[in-house]
């Protein structure tokens, strides 16, 4: 143990929690991707030294409480409306860097109009889209992104596409819109994917700082509570089932 104490010294510090994260314990379930993505956003804000310039807009859903975890000014938007709220911030406070943070129910279902039109107008904002194929906060109901055959509390026998339509790859739609300049699909389940995801978030924030329009990052995520799997098994399930349908990589980078 003496040896460990020699290592754990300020001069040897190589990784610590971002100062842009608050000390509040995150309200998310164990292993939740929200926590990882929050951390990456905080690290990017810290690295770019834009804490004073950043305005976050958080959604309805599990991450409704994101404002408790990142030490920046926040607006909490009605369900699906974050892109409209963020539009006003981008227009009225062009000197700021605004990002909307949304889940898949929020962005791809109830807020479809708002996200499509904000991206089509090329609002100068970052959109972070957490896609875990399920409504987490309300207890694991089917989302527009739920995979075919995937059981949820409102599709207990698995999603029947004849009844409820196909899982929606909204990021592919977003990439078609001229207002977007950077559209990418990332994950955050391994050290390598976390590093890549952070690079994407950094690029998106850099783009907005350079007033390039909308940068859109989908993060294919897990919901271990909704999926009824352990966090580790959830990651395995995501790799096996989500990634073949939601293929990772840049869809657009102009």
């Amino acid at each position: 143990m003496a040896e460990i104490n020699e290592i754990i010294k300020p001069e040897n510090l190589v990784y610590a929690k971002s100062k842009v994260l608050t000390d509040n314990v995150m309200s998310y379930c164990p292993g939740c991707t929200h926590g990882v993505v929050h951390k990456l956003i905080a690290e990017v804000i810290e690295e770019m030294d834009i804490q004073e310039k950043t305005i976050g807009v958080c959604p309805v859903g599990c991450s409704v409480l994101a404002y408790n975890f990142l030490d920046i000014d926040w607006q909490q938007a009605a369900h699906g409306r974050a892109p409209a709220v963020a539009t006003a911030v981008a227009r009225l406070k062009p000197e700021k860097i605004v990002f909307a943070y949304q889940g898949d129910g929020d962005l791809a279902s109830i807020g479809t109009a708002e996200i499509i039109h904000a991206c089509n107008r090329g609002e100068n904002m970052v959109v972070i889209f957490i896609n875990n194929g399920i409504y987490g906060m309300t207890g694991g109901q089917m989302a527009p992104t739920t995979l075919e055959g995937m059981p949820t509390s409102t599709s207990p026998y698995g999603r029947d596409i004849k009844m409820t339509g196909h899982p929606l790859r909204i990021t592919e739609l977003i990439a078609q819109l001229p207002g977007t300049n950077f559209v990418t699909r990332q994950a955050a389940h391994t050290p390598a994917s976390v590093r890549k995801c952070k690079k994407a978030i950094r690029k998106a924030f850099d783009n907005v700082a350079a007033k390039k329009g909308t940068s859109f990052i989908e993060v294919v995520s897990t919901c271990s509570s909704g999926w009824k799997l352990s966090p580790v098994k959830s990651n395995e399930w995501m790799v096996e089932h989500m990634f073949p349908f939601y293929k990772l990589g840049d869809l657009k980078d102009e």
Partner: protein
Amino acid sequence: MAKVKGAIKVDDEKCKGCSLCVVACPQKVISLAKEVNGKGYNYAYMANPDECTGCTNCAMVCPDSVITVYRLKSQVEA
């Protein structure tokens, strides 16, 4: 070859025992404790501290940002 020496510090009261760091560690340093914290979670700890290289992978994937990583710099250079 000089071995890189690292160590992690886990904020065990905030750890939720999700195990993502356990599987992310290439050196199999981390395990979940048999004991639980105030919230009832089996928190992560260094079960094999000698193997830690301070690579930061565990902290990278930690959703709750409860892992701080240290590394002996001189040995990194060696």
